[in-house]
């Protein structure tokens, strides 16, 4: 029989990511994923169809506002594809962040009664978002094939094996930010109010509804937007999917490096908070 041994110390804070323990609780992660997924669409008429409907609705909105009214160019990419592609990608990141921004507050009643690796909750949230993203990709890929046949887009097929890494990168980045926010919201509730506002601002600071090439080189706004860690992955993703977009290896590397730093900080903060947050919440 396997013997379990736990040593609870008063002062082992700092970096400690117990992946082995998380692995032991893998069934919990899957069950939580399953729960979140089923619960999102209980008592809705359209059920899981919403996964596809909501990005389509927002794409439609962007087409009207930014494509038709504002007349922003989409670099020659068909507008439907451009906006749908950008929205799904952005949503993966944004949902990974916001779904985790309230981890501690929303689960206080469970965390206060039983121990399990708290990181299981953020991980399951990311899985939910990835599954939704995969479903949305069916439509996106369908459109890509359609427009490729028509000769309107030219996807970079040989780079497609890179996609999983990009997706993992942005979901981990989103999760890390979310975890940091949720750890801080245990002490400062103000942050939870700010989150939705910041996410909106962040979206407009990312080339989601416009291509980066629309911005004048050397302008201040472009400089600022280039520092946004989501800019390079966004452009890369669109480049791979549609053949049009700016590939910036340097900025991509910087974005990955930032993800690493955020993950580290996230884990440290999370560990710190998970041990005593029940005393503060």
């Amino acid at each position, binding site marked *: 029989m396997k013997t379990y041994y736990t040593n609870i*110390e*008063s002062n082992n804070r700092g970096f400690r990511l117990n992946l082995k323990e998380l692995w032991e609780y893998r069934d*919990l992660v899957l069950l939580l994923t399953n729960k979140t997924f089923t619960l999102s669409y209980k008592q809705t008429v359209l059920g899981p169809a919403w996964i596809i409907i909501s990005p389509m609705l927002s794409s439609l909105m962007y087409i009207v506002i930014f494509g038709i009214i504002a007349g922003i160019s989409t670099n020659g990419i068909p507008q439907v594809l451009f906006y749908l592609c950008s929205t799904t990608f952005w949503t993966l990141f944004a949902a990974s962040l916001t779904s985790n921004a309230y981890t501690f507050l929303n689960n206080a009643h469970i965390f206060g009664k039983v121990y399990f690796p708290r990181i299981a909750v953020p991980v399951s949230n990311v899985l939910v978002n990835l599954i939704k993203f995969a479903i949305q990709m069916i439509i996106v890929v369908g459109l890509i094939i359609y427009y490729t046949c028509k000769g309107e887009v030219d996807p970079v097929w040989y780079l497609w094996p890179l996609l999983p890494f990009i997706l993992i990168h942005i979901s981990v980045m989103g999760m890390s930010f979310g975890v940091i926010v949720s750890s801080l919201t245990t002490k400062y509730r*103000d942050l939870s109010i700010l989150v939705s506002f910041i996410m909106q601002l962040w979206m407009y600071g990312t080339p989601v509804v416009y291509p980066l090439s629309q911005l004048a080189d050397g302008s201040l706004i472009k400089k600022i937007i280039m520092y946004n860690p989501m800019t390079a992955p966004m452009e890369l993703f669109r480049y791979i999917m549609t053949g049009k977009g700016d590939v910036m290896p340097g900025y991509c590397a910087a974005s990955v490096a930032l993800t690493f730093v955020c993950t580290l900080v996230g884990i440290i903060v999370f560990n710190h908070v998970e041990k005593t947050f029940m005393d503060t919440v």
Partner: protein
Amino acid sequence: MKQKETAVIMSGVSKKYRYGQIGAGTLQGDLKEWYQRKKNARDKDEKAADAPYSIGDTFYALKDINLTIKRGETLGIIGKNGAGKSTLLKLLSRITAPSEGNIKIYGRVASMLEVGTGFHGELTGRENIYLNGAILGMNRAEITEKIEDIIEFSEVGDFIDTPVKRYSSGMYVKLGFAVAAHLDSEIMIMDEVLAVGDMEFQHKCLDRMKAAAKKEGKTVLYVSHNMHTIRRLCDRCIVLDKGKLVFDGDVDKATAIYLGAEDIQQIRYEFDADYRPYDEYIRLNKRFSMDVLEVLDTQLPEYDEGDIPHLRLTCTSLQQFANVGFRFEFWYQDGTKVGTMLSGKATEIRKGQNVLELRPDLTHLTPGQYRADLVAYLYDSDGNEDILDGVYPGFAFSIRNKLDERHYLDWHHQYWGHIRLHDMTVNRWQ
């Protein structure tokens, strides 16, 4: 090997909390609090003497706990509210970390600080069993293996595929406990979860926990205010008081200490304010007070069933009362009320000091320790009473376990109650 026998070792474990709101919740609040603390540190000497604490001071919910729990032990944890019981369980179940010291745990821990943790109303009973089981540390295969047993134990039966939001609260609790009871963990931690559910189910749960400890060698840690369940389940008991471990050992002794009935040898009681914890509620009008009670017939208040102790009560009255009654309300050592003895006829109380002789007849009481609250009251012919004074306890004593033709059996308090009624006669039918 030591690890094989030991389940938990706590060494020097303390848990500190801060007075006042911990973390004001907003950044502004935190800054204010920080300033306040600074200011307090500066003004330490000027601090009002009667202020019990200032914001930012810390107190120990648990202080320097050293405890070793062996495998297969069922340990009861008792103490008054705020003694640190829940904190202790929270530390052991890793919900919060200790401020000092360390805890070594050999084995998996299943904590049942609540039943049905993580149950979601929209999910069916079956889905919730999986989710709850996984939260408590089981994997999917283990749950699948046990799900039939769990469903059977829960008595939920046909409703298992109904969303739990449609369950009655009893069903909810039963399902929650059923999951917890089927955990394979070596160490089980329970915080009075048994207090819910009907009597029959409570007994079923207790028996299940007992079997888990005795047959499967599981270690059970159980917190309760109910001395009966502690006695039924536990073979060792610790008493916490204000965060400190004050007793560790035998269950009977522990419950006695918890109830303040240990070391009964007092034969003279001077009733000061400590004896009147409820004074502000019941003794509105201090016209009469009981001052001293002396036990005259013995140096050690131990009696046999049927003895009649000889007591002398001295009391002071500010006025004359024609019909004053006295009563002893008897408590058994485990905190159950046994019964009440009234003074047969009204006593006349004169203004000034009165010395009374009290002769309570201890017939029917079974072996064990008792305390009796003494209450004096005025009464009228309509059955109304007006309490003049009450002392808690007024008299504590023990009944010896004497095996003779009348006491031919060890008395089993937990099954038989604390009163031995008059014997019946059984004759051969002629």
